[in-house]
């Protein structure tokens, strides 16, 4: 055991940070880290201040050690990114692009207009956004297309109606007189 104030301070901070752990595990962790410091110092072959600081730096902050214990967070730099990517990868590989929701969405969008003219495809959008297989980008594109498809005929109807109104407006008949 060492009486080094730097080591004592470090272990004190570790003990304070370790309050969320069970008493048994806290004692064990402190013991493990204490022995690690002794091992490292005997490998370094000296206990001057620089060596001790270096050993403690390599151990990392006490809070970091405890949070790894509590959260199970991966301690390596970049590990989280890789793990996340691997998870995306494996779900991506198992995921086909089409399931029940996606097929209903496509059927409604494609044939909805034949059932209910013009606005028929709109309920399809509900299923598009309910999909957990398509990306947000996919969904935005689908929505834009459907809105365009619905809006175009409506716009056409509007323009035609306006065209009919125009001559009447030219003949200065009041709107109420329109049969």
């Amino acid at each position, binding site marked *: 055991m060492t009486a080094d104030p730097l080591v004592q301070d470090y272990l004190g901070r570790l003990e304070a940070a370790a309050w969320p752990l069970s008493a048994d595990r806290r004692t064990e*962790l402190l013991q493990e880290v204490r022995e*690690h410091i002794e091992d490292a110092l005997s490998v370094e072959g000296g206990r001057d201040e620089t060596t001790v600081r270096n050993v403690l730096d390599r*151990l990392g902050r006490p809070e970091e*050690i405890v949070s790894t214990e509590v959260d199970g967070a991966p301690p390596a730099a970049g590990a989280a990114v890789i793990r996340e990517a691997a998870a995306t*990868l494996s779900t991506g590989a*198992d995921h086909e692009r089409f399931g029940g929701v996606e097929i209903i969405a496509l059927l409604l969008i494609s044939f909805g207009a034949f059932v209910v003219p013009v606005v028929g495809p709109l309920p399809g959008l509900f299923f598009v956004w309910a999909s957990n297989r398509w990306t947000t980008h996919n969904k935005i594109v689908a929505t834009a297309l459907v809105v365009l498809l619905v809006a175009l005929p409506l716009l056409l109807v509007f323009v035609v109606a306006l065209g009919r109104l125009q001559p009447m407006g030219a003949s200065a008949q009041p709107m109420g007189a329109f049969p």
Partner: protein
Amino acid sequence: MLEHCVLAILREGESYAFEIVRVLSQAGELLTSEGTIYPLLARLRRDGLVTTSWRDSESGPPRRYYRLTDDGRTSLTAFGAEWARFRDAVDAILAEGPSDRPRPWARQGARPA
């Protein structure tokens, strides 16, 4: 990922924490904070992927030695396969850049295992 590096180190035979840390650092700074090996080893122990036993050391107090269990070996094999798939996918992207062609991992995943 780091857990599986530890399991891989133990595949060659039992070892103790300080030695595992040394192998990880020599392999290329895999462990940024050496102290986090202890929570990691505790987790492997709780998950039944390693077992431990106390041995006398030549100097100082007895050491806790870690040994791979059958579950640990299975987990390591599974990780090896997944890692290879991930590495190939990243290599392909890095080599060719993103393209409109089907993603290599999607094609791989579509094949029956």
